């Protein structure tokens, strides 16, 4: 046991939610300590890694996991872009596809991706910062499915606004989420390809709307507007989009102390059930104890429940905050189907940001009692690499290669859906019996998708087909039936609710079982809705921070 640390508020996890809660509380004069399991990274390093990575389509390739705080990978190990980093990068065996960190119990694969570094997973994202729809908070009452939230849209509105202003959100007002104040910024300039979608689909009854994103349409908060590098994932080269690295830096600037490479492995309570301390390992597996008055767990939808489940004691034999038995349960994400086709027009995807526009028509309606609501999302990711790889696979050589490459790069496009998955207690994160390099249990996921989602996918397929027709599309390629791409929106595993028997935290993010333990992040969302969850998690986190400041 080495030296002991202490702070008024101890935050576990330095992603957007943890860091911005830390910043907000540090500004009240509280002493704040952030414990982050992963290492520090910089934007320049990540751009370098991207350009040197052998798998440009694998957005995790620039983020090799560290030895002491691994995150899941699903591809072969290419090592490291620099000799300097090699000793710190966790290696996996030859011929292994992925490091096996997230153990899959099935029946449906759930290959979740997240990043354990200072700043967390939003180093790498499309920067979507949507508000939910007011009805998303009441689907049990309105449609008889899922759960109602212990918070209303109106209660969250000021915190949504705060999140939008803090991170710099640009957006259009016509997405179905009412506002009391305007967006901080106008929508980002519309790429030519999205204009053609809008112009050709509108007469067919599909309004195409600019996405709500934490991406600058003008200089904002010391960062430049988007320059169209089309690399939002895996890394924006100019910080035109907000990310957790910026959040962590601002927390430190506000006076919070941030310890990287501090892998919290146990939460300790006192006889009364209050949280007294947390324990972390450094990379050499030396243990340290950190005491505090309040604790905020913001380690993401898989690592947060993992840590709670690991923290067993005689008083809490199933783990901290788990009196309901709901810790780790109700795992949700947004599994996508999609259609790739060749549009009639030359679109040349790849000019401007990667994910600029959506159709919001199917996000709500009485049909939600029968099948999942969804958003339709158009990619603007350059098709050059995927087209080249497809031509190589097909064995096309000679002058025909470039001719076809240019045709595909100009015409190939894709529409996908982002559907709501209902919470189900059998979809869950548990502790596996496998251990990581520090000897800590790897998380294991149990996941299945039901007919509520499959029926939605049938509807979405009809909409894709109609969209392709309106675009003069040819060469339609649907994703295989019941094979969905994951969107890495890990939700529900430490769900909020009014009933301590059926939820982990209350409407303010406070653990039902421990009055000085709060949880932040997408894991506390009771339902998943049809949009990327980061802004909702952040708004809830700000509401939690308000509550902590009052106590």
């Amino acid at each position: 046991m080495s030296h002991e640390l202490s702070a008024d508020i101890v935050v576990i996890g330095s992603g957007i939610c943890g860091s911005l809660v830390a910043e907000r509380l540090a500004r009240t004069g509280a002493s704040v300590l952030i414990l982050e399991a992963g290492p520090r990274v910089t934007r320049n390093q990540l751009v370098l890694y991207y350009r040197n990575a052998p798998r440009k389509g694998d957005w995790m390739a620039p983020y090799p996991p560290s030895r002491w705080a691994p995150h899941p990978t699903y591809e072969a190990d290419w090592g490291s872009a620099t000799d300097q980093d090699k000793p710190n990068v966790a290696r996996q065996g030859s011929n292994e596809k992925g490091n096996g960190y997230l153990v899959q119990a099935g029946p449906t694969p759930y290959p979740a991706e997240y990043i354990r570094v200072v700043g967390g997973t939003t180093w790498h994202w499309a920067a979507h910062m949507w508000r939910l729809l007011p009805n998303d908070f009441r689907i049990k009452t309105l449609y008889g499915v899922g759960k109602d939230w212990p918070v209303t849209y109106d209660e969250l509105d000021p915190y949504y606004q705060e999140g939008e202003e803090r991170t710099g959100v640009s957006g259009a007002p016509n997405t179905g989420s009412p506002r009391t104040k305007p967006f901080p910024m106008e929508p980002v300039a519309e790429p030519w390809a999205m204009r053609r979608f809008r112009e050709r689909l509108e007469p067919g009854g599909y309004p195409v709307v600019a996405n709500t994103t934490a991406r600058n349409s003008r200089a904002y908060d010391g960062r430049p507007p988007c320059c169209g590098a089309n690399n939002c994932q895996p890394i924006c080269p100019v910080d035109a989009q907000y990310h957790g690295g910026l959040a962590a830096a601002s927390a430190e600037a506000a006076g919070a102390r941030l310890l990287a490479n501090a892998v919290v492995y146990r939460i300790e309570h006192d006889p009364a059930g209050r949280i007294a301390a947390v324990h972390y390992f450094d990379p050499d597996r030396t243990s340290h104890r950190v005491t505090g008055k309040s604790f905020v767990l913001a380690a993401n939808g898989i690592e947060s429940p993992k840590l709670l489940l690991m923290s067993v004691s005689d008083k809490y034999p199933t783990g901290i905050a788990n009196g309901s038995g709901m810790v780790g349960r109700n795992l949700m994400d947004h599994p996508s189907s999609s259609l790739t086709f060749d549009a009639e027009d030359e679109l040349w995807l790849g000019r401007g940001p990667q994910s600029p526009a959506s159709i919001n028509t199917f996000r709500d309606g009485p049909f939600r009692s029968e099948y999942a609501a969804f958003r339709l999302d158009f990619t603007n990711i350059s098709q050059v690499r995927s087209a080249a790889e497809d031509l190589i696979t097909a064995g096309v050589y000679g002058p025909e290669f470039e001719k076809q490459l240019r045709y595909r790069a100009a015409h190939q496009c894709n529409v996908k859906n982002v559907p709501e998955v209902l919470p189900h207690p059998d979809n869950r994160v548990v502790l596996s019996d496998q251990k990581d390099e520090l000897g800590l249990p790897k998380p294991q996921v149990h996941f299945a998708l039901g007919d509520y989602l499959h029926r939605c996918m049938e509807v979405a397929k009809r909409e894709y087909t109609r969209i392709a027709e309106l675009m003069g599309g040819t060469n339609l390629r649907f994703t295989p039936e019941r094979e969905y791409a994951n969107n890495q929106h890990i939700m529900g595993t430490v769900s909020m609710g009014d009933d301590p028997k059926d939820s982990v935290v209350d409407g303010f993010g406070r653990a039902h079982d421990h009055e000085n333990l709060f949880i932040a992040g997408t894991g506390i969302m009771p339902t998943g809705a049809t949009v990327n969850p980061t802004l909702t998690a952040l708004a809830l986190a700000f509401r939690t921070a308000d509550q902590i400041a009052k106590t």
Partner: protein
Amino acid sequence: MDEPNASLGGHDGPDPDRRGVLIGLTATYLFSYVPSAIAQPADAGARDAFMAVAQILTGRPSLDADQASRLYEALIADAPGFAADVQALRSFMDQRKIDPIQLQSTLDAEQSPLAAMPRNIVKAWYTGIVGEAERARCVTFETSLMHVAVADRLNPPSYCYGSYGSWMDQPA
């Protein structure tokens, strides 16, 4: 976030600076150039064959010599038999005069031991990647032919397209 510690740092606190990264990169570049500068005469036939085959397979009569050297070295490092195989492929293509669009199906139909060669060569030139799975290495990026082929319309990802909003215009 432009902190000086541009590494996947082992411990919190001051990390080795960016210079280390740059030195590492420079060393990588030097390493890849040195063999071409001191090319063994025994290699000359294989290098010629690589260039000749690549010109046909890529449909580009003019290919950059330095890029050729770097790709060749990487292909040799990935598969020691590459030098002999590329010369055999050149002979096969010279003798049979097969249209490149028919080449792969011909090699596949004849179950040729050279069947994997054209893909590896075209992949190297167009995507800049040599090797599979954990042996895969990125040899070129900005000058990979897939980016060169569309340079009048698109930049390689991670390079700015232009000033704010320039992507609103019809590509021309």
